[in-house]
């Protein structure tokens, strides 16, 4: 709890970081959003349908648009609305759903941006004092290639999980064990258990990668592999604290998305549309604050151990 609190103190003390990563999220999503707007505008043209589409949901038009769409137009589904977007994206991650190239490209760019920024972020949280813009980007630059190498290594680990473990668990074991089950509750519980198993494997990799990043930055390590081994040693020796902190942060994540599920602003037109857009941005800000909270609290734990 102490590290959770300490992490939050560090996140709060550096609001520019939060605003910065939010700006990156906004800016990298914007080009595709503009493209999407062009597609929608072209399809609506001078049609009267635009009035009902602007006022709320015209699902008949929506389905017509979908049936004529290619590329990113195919991602324009009801799953984009409110909390369904969160469910859709979590489902997409845990169930290994493919994304079309432009969207996958935007996500890849975003991950690259995070890889670049992580050095500066961790440096700022570790120092617990303002580092200034120049200092921040200097730290980003110093650690970027080390973190990039780590990203390649962790990418291989995740790829192995998704390319080999996932199909074995969900496409073979799950199918084989559940195909004779006549009760949905039983099938659901098996799936839930497998999500827990697979999720735990993902979290283990995630935790090790997090502390590897911290060791690279805090200890100014040049070798990603060396930092990785050291991080594994650290995680193993302090497994109780590490797991407890991760679980508390995970609980915060569940609380945030739970609140978003309750708020779920729905679809409105006019000024209310922009209020719901604002609500969406605040939710994303909370998600990003949580992402930083993970890093900050883990940094605090590492530094105090």
């Amino acid at each position, binding site marked *: 709890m102490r590290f959770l609190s300490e992490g939050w103190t560090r996140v709060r003390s550096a609001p520019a970081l939060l605003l910065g990563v939010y700006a990156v*999220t*906004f800016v990298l*999503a914007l080009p*595709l*959003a503009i493209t*999407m*707007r*062009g597609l929608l*505008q072209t399809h*609506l*043209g*001078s*049609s*009267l*349908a*635009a009035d009902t*589409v*602007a006022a709320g*949901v015209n*699902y*008949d*038009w929506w*389905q*017509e648009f979908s049936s004529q769409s290619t590329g990113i137009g195919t991602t*324009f*589904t*009801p799953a*984009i*609305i409110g*909390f*369904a*977007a*969160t*469910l*859709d*994206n*979590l489902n*997409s*991650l*845990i*169930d290994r759903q493919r*994304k079309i190239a432009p*969207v996958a490209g*935007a*996500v890849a760019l975003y991950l690259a941006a*995070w*890889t670049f920024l*992580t050095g500066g972020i961790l440096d700022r949280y570790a120092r617990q004092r303002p580092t200034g813009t120049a200092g921040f980007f200097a730290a980003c630059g110093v650690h970027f290639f080390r973190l990039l190498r780590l990203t390649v290594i962790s990418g291989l680990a995740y790829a192995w999980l998704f390319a080999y473990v996932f199909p074995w668990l969900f496409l073979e074991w799950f199918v084989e064990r559940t*195909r004779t*089950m*006549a*009760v*949905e509750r039983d*099938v*659901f519980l098996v799936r839930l258990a497998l999500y827990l198993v697979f999720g735990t494997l993902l979290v283990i990799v995630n935790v090790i990668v997090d502390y590897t990043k911290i060791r690279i930055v805090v200890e100014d390590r040049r070798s990603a592999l060396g930092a990785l081994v050291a991080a594994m040693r650290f995680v193993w020796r302090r497994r109780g604290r590490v797991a407890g902190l991760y679980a508390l942060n995970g609980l915060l994540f569940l609380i945030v998305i739970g609140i978003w599920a309750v708020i779920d602003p*729905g*679809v409105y037109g006019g000024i209310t*549309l922009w209020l719901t*857009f604002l609500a969406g941005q605040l939710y994303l800000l909370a998600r*990003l604050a949580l992402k930083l909270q993970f890093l900050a609290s883990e940094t605090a734990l590492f530094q105090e151990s």
Partner: protein
Amino acid sequence: MTRRRALPFLAIVFAIAAITTEGQSPRNASYDIDVRLDHGARTLTGRETIRWRNISTRPTSELQFHLYWNAWRNADSTWLRERKMSRNYTAPLPDGWGSMDVTSVQLRELSGSMRDLTSAIRFIAPDAAPHEGNTTDRTVMAVPLDRSVAPNETIELELAWNAKIPRPVSRTGYIGDFYFIAQWFPKLGVLEDTGWNTHQFHSPTEFYADFGVYDVRITVPTRFIVGATGRQTARTDNGDGSTTHRYQQEDVHDFAWTASPEYIDLTRTFTHPPLPPVEMRLLLQPEHRGQADRYFSATEAALKRYGEWFGAYPYGHATVVDPAFQSQADGMEYPTFFTGRARLFPSGSRQTPEMTVAHEAGHQWWYGMVATNEFEHAWMDEGINTYATARVLDEAFPGNRWELRFFGGHIPWSFPDIPFSRLDNDRIAGYRDNAEADVPATPTFRYWPSSAAIMSYNKTALWLHTLERHLGWPVMQRILSTFFERWTFKHPQPADFFQIVNEVSGQDLTWFFDQVYRSSNTFDYGVQDLLSERQDDGTYRTTVIARRYGEATFPVDVVTTFADGHQITETWNGLDRRAIYVYERSSRASHVQIDPRRVLLLDTAYTNNSRTLEPRGGAASLGWAARWMVWLQDLMVTYAFFV
């Protein structure tokens, strides 16, 4: 009671009288069956006595039977060959196959002795290309007779057979202790004036059979609860751990049953005078015990509205089955017996179980009593029923909403902002994507397998709904009630339906059926241009160019609205490629709409049916792009887990 109210009331009373007294079926193919389920071996052993009367005008010296379960006997059956052409085909697992072997066929001679025809059995594949020469298909069995059966002559046959129950496939099979047993006995084809109509089992088709009386004794382990077509008339404990359940039903053309020890057995009575009461029996999965009311209310909604609109349900009882998960038995109809669909976590959406239950209940009228040939004209059941179900749901369950399911389909999320409209129940979305897939007049068994349902369900529902908007509901209701009244228990053909439409509407709508039934052309009307220019004298010259982009034609209204609110409506026959209208008025045009009442629901692109002088898509596209951007940002943040 006003005259207006009295007429439908009297119509119902007459309809009931007609059905329950004079309207009985020919009862020319009656089955007396004993079947035993071997739960351990997953097999059926059966014997049946068939009393068949030749109601055609031609004699026959051969009998033809459907052995449907042989569709899953090997990978070369016609059914599986066609299924392989569909998307998402998965081959049956090694223990998933099913089969049916007739071990004895005997014909009762005039003397009363039995003549053994077993050695004469052969398998035929009556349907030509692309399955010509498919000698591996064993879903149709021919039995030559050494004599002719004259028109109106009755013969009696005794058959014995063994069957291996498949794992769930196409609404039959077993999973765990759950059995759903359909198309499970050797069943005669239909002898028509043109010869036997006995198609091999095809992937996109359902069934066709003559009416009769069924008396079926089903022996299962005692702990099993059984549901079936008809009424249970006896239950005998055999003292060996098995119990025989006897079910009887007159005037039906099929018989299916289910058995499971898990069912919750509930009954309720539907009453809505002057419609006759119906005893509803619901066999519910324990995990859906909270959804019993939803099952009953959907059944009642169908019984009430179909009864009022088309004719009363005459059987007095109906069994609704909530099938086991992964049983593939959901959403299917059999006489007096049908299956719904429910989920562990239901949502506020009424798609399950209401939509499914109302639809399958509705089949009792078209599939069950009118009983068209589903091998050849599936649209006459599925399409008419989809259209009618959409109307029932629109009335009975307003406020339905869309839902999506996540995490293996278990977790629902419904959208309060997205109504599930009658058009959605007409299945317009699927139609748009496959509007040209086939000519609906093509016999169903020749449809491209993966688009067959689009033609039978979606397109038919949409053209019937279009007809409703063109003629009005009162006329449409009379068309369907006349069709039901005139053709109950008689196997009508498409021409019979078209003839009734023309007769009742008082119009020759052949041109419409040429478009929607005998052609795969699509409808698409749109506004090519709208100009409104100020003239020297201060007036505005407004030019509207309406365009037919599709090949199919339909009369449409072209309504031009001016800035002062004045409207001018033109009725365009829709035949030419373009229609140009020019107006000189003191006011500038505001917008133009083609088919503003949306009569032509088959128009595949309705967005282009209207045009304003100034583009209006800006605000709408900005708002929705903003929402989409939140989704994309959420996706990015979610995947940031990896770095």
